[in-house]
């Protein structure tokens, strides 16, 4: 088969060999609709049985009409469940976006905020904020961001050997940073009073129950802005995924993109950890599924991972809060249950 140089048919035939804007928009729209449906339907699920019809009616009226729900039922739906589900979506979207970007930038399918110790950095920041600046709610995300950025830089520096960062070296660097920061966490925990320790251990494993009204909009805004910012760097990341030197040769400003990804991804991880502790493996499972089903092009896999991550954590959290109701599991336990076997599979294949 030959392609005549001016024949647009040859160009059209190439459409199936690459990701197009059209395919991206259609896939993301489908994911967004699924996400919206999940938000609505899963808010009906919980330890307290709510009347389905009235709840749907109230949700579709956007909370303007109770539709026959009692005040208690209305509050459960709008003050407890919905904020928690929306937070789950923001956290899942943030972590999956960060994971997808780290993987491309570091050329490592195993890179993940939790496994690299970046979530632990944010956790240390959050705990320092709680212990020393307990009164100020804002100090939590700010110090969490600082913590995740410092942890990112530490892992990056440790992983970069003379021969560049091999996948194994990066994971080892992550293990070292993780264990070191875990000790710091234990140390900071001893500074807390005994009654709070239990809730902190729960929070560390990922806990979406403590939704803060002030911080929720911030977490959502960071998730959205972060996903957009990283999607706009997706074409550079496509080349970085193939090698830093190649990317440089082809015209990518490697240093600038690296800083953007480090800062934005740290912001995403910091805001999620400040809101919900360390929900692990989301950044591994979701980007991997996105690439598997839609291809490696970051222009589709980053936005798809953002939406898919939101969906994944909403579902995981629904399981976490219903499976042993009225008690709850940390959502991080559910995501790790799914993520750890996948990590082993990916490690074996690498």
């Amino acid at each position: 088969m030959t392609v005549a140089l001016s024949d647009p048919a040859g160009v059209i035939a190439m459409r199936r060999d690459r990701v197009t804007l059209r395919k991206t928009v259609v896939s993301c729209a489908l994911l967004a609709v699924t996400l919206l449906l999940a938000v609505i339907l899963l808010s009906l699920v919980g330890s307290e049985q709510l009347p389905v019809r009235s709840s749907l009616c109230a949700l579709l009226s956007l909370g303007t009409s109770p539709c026959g729900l009692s005040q208690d039922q209305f509050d459960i739906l709008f003050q407890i469940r919905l904020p928690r589900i929306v937070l789950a979506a923001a956290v899942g979207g943030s972590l999956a976006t960060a994971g997808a970007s780290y993987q491309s930038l570091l050329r490592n399918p195993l890179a993940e905020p939790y496994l690299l110790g970046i979530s632990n950095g944010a956790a240390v920041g959050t705990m320092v904020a709680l212990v020393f600046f307990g009164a100020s709610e804002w100090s939590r995300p700010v110090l969490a961001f600082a913590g995740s950025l410092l942890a990112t830089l530490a892992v990056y520096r440790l992983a970069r050997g003379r021969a560049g960062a091999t996948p194994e070296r990066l994971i080892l660097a992550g293990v070292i940073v993780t264990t070191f920061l875990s000790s710091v966490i234990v140390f900071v925990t001893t500074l807390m009073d005994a009654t709070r320790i239990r809730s902190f251990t729960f929070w560390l494993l990922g806990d979406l129950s403590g939704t803060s009204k002030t911080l929720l909009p911030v977490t959502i805004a960071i998730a959205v802005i972060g996903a957009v910012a990283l999607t706009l760097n997706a074409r550079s990341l496509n080349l970085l995924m193939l090698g830093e030197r190649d990317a440089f040769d082809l015209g990518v400003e490697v240093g600038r993109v690296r800083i953007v990804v480090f800062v934005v991804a740290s912001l995403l991880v910091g805001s999620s950890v400040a809101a919900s502790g360390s929900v692990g493996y989301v950044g591994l499972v979701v980007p991997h599924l996105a690439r598997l089903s839609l291809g490696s092009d970051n222009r589709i896999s980053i936005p798809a991972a953002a939406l898919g991550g939101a969906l994944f954590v909403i579902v995981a959290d629904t399981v976490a809060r219903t499976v042993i109701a009225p008690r709850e599991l940390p959502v991080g336990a559910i995501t790790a249950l799914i993520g750890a076997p996948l990590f082993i599979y990916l490690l074996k294949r690498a």
Partner: protein
Amino acid sequence: MLEARDLTISYNDRVAVSNVTLTLSAGEITTLVGPNGAGKSTLLRSLNGQVSRTSGAVLLDGQPIEKYSRRAIGRRVAVVAQEAELRFPVTVLEFVLGGRFAWGPNSGWGWETERDLVVAAEVLAETELTELSGRLMNELSGGERQRAVLARALATEASFLLLDEPTANLDLAHQAMLLNLVRNRCDARQTAALVVTHDLNLAAQFADNVLLMKDGKAVRSGRPHEVLTPELLSRVFDIEVLVDAHPITGAPRVTPLAVPRTGEIK
């Protein structure tokens, strides 16, 4: 025109390239030969601004290369390196379209234009990869993969091609095929190419000019028969060689005579 003028590059106190002057002119292939550690790759990498100079200058159309943005350089100078390890599945077409990055907008989602696709279709046809465009890069053979790396460089439509041991992992037929593709591009579009290679015979056969380097210094540059002489080669490579004329092309043909024992290589 892309040129290095009195270029010196040192790392810490080790001088990798010392006072080298080199000009790449339109339509010509220059090969860069010399022993391991002669500074060939460093010189090549300085020509697109990746390795920064200690003194001297690299001039792209008369302007110091530092004055250009990364994208501007990416549109003018393309590098073909030995294939890097791929850790993510990418189709051949996606890989080749990477060569169009520098032509894309500075910001935004950055989807390829119709023109990008036309250029990709052209270079895929040129490198005989059209039928493989939907295959994953890691499913290709070594020769096909190296052709895809060349196709990506050609897709940049750069006027200067820098090839760093492009044939190192290829068998005889694929070596010649790859360099033929470079030759054709240089003839058709007045592209200039610099090829770093260890294969002196390949250098002689495809080059308009040869630059022979040792210990960071340019030993001699000129037409292949002026540079690839037995005296110079024995001195530079520390090995006795026989140089005769290729029976068909007449290009210099280099045959090593005595094989040095360990310890004799300086």
